[in-house]
């Protein structure tokens, strides 16, 4: 169980939106994390690597400036953790996006593809959590 944090979540969300707006207006690129990390070619590596560096550094910068960060890890076994990682990696590339590219940028652009993709991944994710937590498949 986690605490409901409407103010922090709204504020943090606005920052995510600001980052998406910044990437579009400065570089003309969509801030979709799965695409930024998953495109193998060296194309546009000039901004992709610094973006990923900033993403990794941000929580450390906040922590060193005194913010208390709740670090949790998925409450499942190693096997399922690896399967989950494989599915997230493969699925986001096959479906051309994740929560940032489809869920924030695509929905903000009113892209039908992104709106449908966001509904689909929210639905399958909610089903999995339901099975995990309410059908006695706790290890799942």
């Amino acid at each position, binding site marked *: *169980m*986690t605490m*409901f*944090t*409407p103010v922090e*979540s*709204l504020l*943090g*969300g*606005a*920052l*995510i*939106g600001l*980052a998406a*707006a*910044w990437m*579009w207006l*400065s570089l*003309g690129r969509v801030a979709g994390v*799965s695409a930024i*990390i998953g495109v*193998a070619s060296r194309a546009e590596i*000039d*901004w992709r690597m*610094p973006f990923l560096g*900033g*993403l990794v550094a941000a*929580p450390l*910068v*906040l922590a060193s400036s005194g913010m208390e960060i*709740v*670090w*949790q890890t*998925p409450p*499942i076994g*190693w096997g399922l*953790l690896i*399967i*989950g*990682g*494989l*599915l*997230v*990696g*493969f*699925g986001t*590339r*096959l479906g051309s996006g*994740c929560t940032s590219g489809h869920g924030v940028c695509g*929905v*903000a652009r009113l892209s039908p*593809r992104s709106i449908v993709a966001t509904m*689909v*991944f929210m639905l*399958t*994710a*909610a089903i999995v*959590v*339901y099975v995990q*937590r309410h059908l006695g498949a706790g290890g799942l």
Partner: protein
Amino acid sequence: MRALAGLIGGLIFGAGLTISGMINPLKVQAFLDVAGNWDPSLAFVMGGAIPVAALGFAIGRRRRAPLLSQGFSGPTKHALDAKLLGGAAIFGIGWGLTGYCPGPALASVGHGAPETLVFVAAMLVGMAGFRLLLRAG
């Protein structure tokens, strides 16, 4: 300049993920757990992110080019095809299972928990697997 723009974007994005609570996989799962002790916080994350991003895209429509690139380079696909639906469904299963999506997982790498590192490694393997499949055609 493009590197600096990328760095700034990543920093703001990562700060947003951290402050909003998205980097906590338990919080993500609590949002997905509509039948249990539902934590609606993540709806507020989207509620904060989408209007601000939409404003950015609206400003972009009035400009011929972004500040630091030749032109805007947005998504080009329009079809609601099986790849999109299947990919989203597969991603959702992994997301529900772990509570991690790519952004928050990467943003958590600096903390160095073995679970995070293993997840990110598996995610990269999954992405590489997709590329191999694409090449095999």
